[in-house]
C-alpha cells in the first residue's frame, strides 16, 4: 500500500504532462488534417520533407528519363 504514496503523485504529474502535450499538439494543428498527411507520400510533387526524399524523387526522375 505504501507504493501508492509514490504512484498517485506520479500519475497526477503524468496527467498534467499529457494535458500539456495535447495542448501543444492542438495548437500546432496536428489534428486539423488527419488524412492529408498520410496521402501526401503518394504525391510526387509535394514539398520534400528531408534529404532522403529529395534524393529518392530526383533519382526516380532520372531513371524515368
Amino acid at each position: 500500500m505504501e507504493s501508492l504514496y509514490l504512484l498517485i503523485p506520479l500519475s497526477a504529474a503524468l496527467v498534467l504532462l499529457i494535458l500539456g502535450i495535447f495542448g501543444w499538439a492542438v495548437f500546432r494543428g496536428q489534428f486539423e488534417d488527419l488524412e492529408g498527411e498520410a496521402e501526401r507520400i503518394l504525391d510526387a510533387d509535394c514539398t520534400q520533407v528531408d534529404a532522403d526524399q529529395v534524393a529518392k524523387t530526383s533519382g526516380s526522375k532520372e531513371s524515368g528519363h
Partner: protein
Amino acid sequence: MSALADPVTATAISTGPETVSPTGLVPAPPEGTQATAAVDDAVEQARYTRWVVDAQGRELRESALQLSGMHCAACTGLIEQALYAVPGVQFAQVGGAAQRATVRWDPTLTQPSALIAAVRGAGYGAVPDAAAPARLARRTEHRQAVWRLFVASFCAMQIMMLAWPSYVTGPGELEADMRQLLNWGGWLLCLPVMVFAAAPFFSRAWHSLRARRIGMDVPVSVALLIAFVASTGATFDPQGIFGHEVYFDSVSMFVSFLLGARYLEMRARHNAAQALETSLACLPEVAMRVAADGTLHSVSVHALRPGDEVRVPVGQAFPADGVLLTGATQADEALLTGESAPVAKAAGSNLVGGSINLGAPVQMRVQRVGGDTRLQAIVSMMRSAMSQRPASAALADRWAGPFLWAVLLLAAGAAAVWSVIDPSKAVWVAVSVLIVTCPCALSIAAPSTLVAAARGLAGQGVMLQKLDALEVLARVQHIYFDKTGTLTETRVVLAGTGLAGTGLAGTGPTGTGLTAVGRAVLGDDAAALAQAASLAAWSSHPISVALAASATPAAQHWDDVQEHPGQGMQATDSQGRHWRLGAADFVGAAGASVDTDDSNAGVWLGCDGQRLAAFELADQPRPGAREAVQALRALGVRVSLLSGDTRERAGALAQVLGLDEVVAGATPEAKLAVVAAAQARGECVAMVGDGINDAPVLARADVSLAMGQGALVSRSSADAVVMSNRLGDIVRARARALRAMRIVRQNLFWAASYNAVCIPLALLGFMPPWAAGLGMATSSLLVMANALRAGR
C-alpha cells in the same frame, strides 16, 4: 501550471506556437493598439464598413464585426450594451447564430477601433468582418475549445478513478491517510479544470455581473465555486466547517459535459459561418478581359466594368453577371436553385456571376458588377437572416434575468432548508439545483431551429430576409398571388398563334403571323421563331431576352451584327442577306397583308427590307404553377389571384390553375384594401409578387415572398425571395416552415418539461451534482440535434 492560472496568460501561451508554426500560416492579429489602429484606415475600413444616411440626413457608417467567445443568448445583450456605451453608436445588433455584430456609428464621434475595444472590454473577441481574420479567429476558438474539452474530460476520468475507492468502501475500511492522499490527488487534478477549462464560464459571469446583468454563466459559476471551495476545505481540513465530503468528480464531470455541449454548439455555428463564406468566395479573383484589339488581359474582378468583354475558361466561375456572346456551354447555377444539374446556355443567355462554366470556353459581356450582382444580393440576404435574432429569442432574453435570479434564490433556499434537515447534503443540493436549472436548452430551442431551417431553405433556393418569416409562413391561411411575373411568365410567340392549349389564347384572330413572303423564305412557324431567336440572342433588350428564351435559337451564323437603339437588330447571314428584327417601320415595307392584330405585334422579323413574320408578347403560366396551387390548396391554404389585368384574362388563368378567388383590374390601392380586408377577417395573409411593383401590398401582408428575377432581387422588400423562380418552392417552403415550428414546439416542450421534472428532484435531494450535469448537457444536446433536423 502556474502560468495557466489566469485565462489571459493562457490565451497568450496558446497563440504562441501558432506564430512560429512552420506551415507558414498568418498568425491571428495581435490584440494590441497597432492592429486596432490599422482598422481605422480608410481603405481597410471600406472592407467591412458601408456608408448610410439616417432619417435626419446624418452621414453614418455601418460596420460588420466578427465576434468570438459567445456561448449563449444572454451574451448578445451584453455585447450590444457594451457597444451602445460607446459615444457615437446609433445602433448595434448582435446576431448569435452567425456571431456577427452590425454597428451603425457616427464618424465624427468614434472610430471602429473604439467599437472593437468596447467589445473586447466586455470580455469577447471582435475583429472586422473580412473573411480571413474571422476564419483565423474561428480556428483559434476551435483549438481553444478542443483543448479545454480535453483538459476537463481527461481530468474528470482521472478524478473518477481517485474517487472510486471512497464510493466502494464501507465506513472505516479506507484508512484516513489514504483517503487524504486520494483527496489531494483529486484536488490537484481538479485545479486545471477549474482555472483553465472552466475559465470561460468564470470570466463571462464576471463580465456580466460587472455590467449589472445576470447571464446563464452566473449560476454555473456559483455552483462550481461552491462545490470546489467546499471540497477544498474538506480536503485540507477534514474536521473543519465544510465537513469531509469532496465533489471533485462532480465538478470536473459537470465542466466536461457543459464544455462538450458548447463545443457542439460552436461547431454548428462555425459551419453556418463557413457556408456563408463559401458562397461569398464563389467569384474568381482575376478575369481575362478582352481588349478592343482582341488581346487578352488578366485583370482583377474588381476592375471589371459593365460593358467589358471577358473570356471564361471551362471550370471557372463567371466573374460577374452578364450575357453570353459567343459559343454555347452549360453552367452550374446551384447557388441560385440549389440544383447542380447543368443549365444549357446559348449565345444571348443570361449568366450569373459565381455560377460555374462547365461546357466550353466562352466569351461574355459584363452587365453588372460588385454589389449589383445576384451573388452579392444572395450573400447579403443570407447574412441578414443569419445574424438576426427572432422575436421569440428576444422574449426569452427578457425573461432570462428574472428567471436566473429565481434560480439563485431557490438554490439558497434549498441550502438553508437542507442545512437544518441534513447539513451534509446542503452543499450538493444547492449545487445540483444551480446546475439542473441552467436554461441552456430553453434558450437555444427556437433560434437554432429557425437558423437550421433557413439554411435548408437557402439550399433549395429560397432566401429568407427575416427569420420570423418562417413562423408566419407556418400560420398562413390565405396566399395572394400577383399574376404577371409570378404565376405567369412573359413569352414571345408568333402573332396570332396565342398560346394554344393553355386556355389563354390571344385576343388576335387565329391564323399565323407569317406573311406570304415569310412563309416562302422561312417555312413553318417554328423555323420563324428559331430564326428570330438566334438574332435576338445578340441583344440584351428585355424583348430580345424574352424572344431568345422562347425558342431554341437556330444554328445561324451572323456577321456584322448591329443594334439600333429603340429600333432593333440588324445582321447579315452567310448568304449575304440583310436581316432585321424590331419595330415594323425599321424592318421594312409590309409584304402581302398579314392577317393579324397589329397592336399586339410588337416585333417583326424581316429580310432585305421585307417583313416576314410578326411576334407578340403573351403571358403563359409558369411551369409547375398548377401543381403548386393544387399542393397549397391540399395543405389547407386558400389561394387567390390579385391582378391588375382584365377580368377575362385573370379569370381564364384562375380557371386553368384552379384558384379560389380572383380579384381583377386591381390598382395598387385596391390590392392593399383586399389584403387588409382579409386580415380584418382574421386571416394570416401571404403575398407573392415580383417584389417591385407590389411593394406596398408586400409590406402589408403578414409575410411576403418575391420571385427572384435578375437584378431586381437586390431591391426587393419581401421577407423571402424565391431565387429559383419555381412556384413549387413556395409549397416546399411552407412545408418546411410547418416542420420547423413543430420542432420548435418539441424543443420548448422538452426543455421546459426537463426543468419541471428535475428541479423538484434536485430540491428533494434525489439528484447528485454529476447527474444534474449529465441531464443538463443531454437536454441541450437533444435540443440541438432536434433543431438540426429542420435543416435537412
